[in-house]
């Protein structure tokens, strides 16, 4: 696999937290950061997908989200929490 080496800078506190989390995960610093970056990219892609979809087809109603949430047996979100997500 081709590897891209990137030099990055963190504030000291965040750097310590990242090192500790990477150590705890047993994945190593590069592996942990790569996984975090991948998750961030996926989250942004999902935001784009839902924004595009809702702009074309209309925003989901509270009822639709509640029904979907119940079906998945997930905790219910309030309207305020939903708009913040």
């Amino acid at each position, binding site marked *: 696999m081709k590897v891209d080496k990137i030099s990055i800078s963190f504030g000291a506190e965040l750097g310590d937290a990242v090192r500790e989390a990477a150590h705890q995960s047993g994945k190593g610093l590069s592996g942990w950061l790569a996984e975090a970056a991948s998750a961030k990219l*996926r989250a942004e892609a999902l935001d784009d997908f*839902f924004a595009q979809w809702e702009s074309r087809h209309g925003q*989901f109603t509270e009822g639709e989200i509640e029904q*979907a949430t119940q079906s*998945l047996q997930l905790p219910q*979100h309030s309207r305020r929490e939903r708009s913040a*997500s």
Partner: protein
Amino acid sequence: VSALLIDAGALRAVEQGNRAVIARLRAAQMNGLELRTTGVVLAEIWRGERPQSLIRELFRGIDVMPLDQALARKAGELQGKTGTYDVAAAALVALARPGDRIVTDDERRYTALVAASGVNSADLLDAVNDEFGRRMSASPDHHGANAATGT
């Protein structure tokens, strides 16, 4: 983090604009669940017509797990126990961890595999059936969704 595991039927339902299924993905995202599938499921999708560009955008947001040796072994064992030949379904069940949910339009495809995995099917399977699709299609903002897409 728990995940919503998506099968090919559910992805096709998304492509067809099924609001009920897309609402599930949105609800999962809002709850911090990863949307996850396997490369085998994507192979099922690419077997048909080229997916629309919006769906390819969705693929970028899904954690696609490779069928590596460990997953292949679990999937193979599940097929062996159940006498089934459905690598995509078996791999998805094998991928499931506690707290995960599988969203599908075809519950029957998974029933035996889930039972063989030792998990209560009600805890793992979220079947988007005809009844749910009809109920959602009655909502004011619904644009012609049809939950049953077949796989």
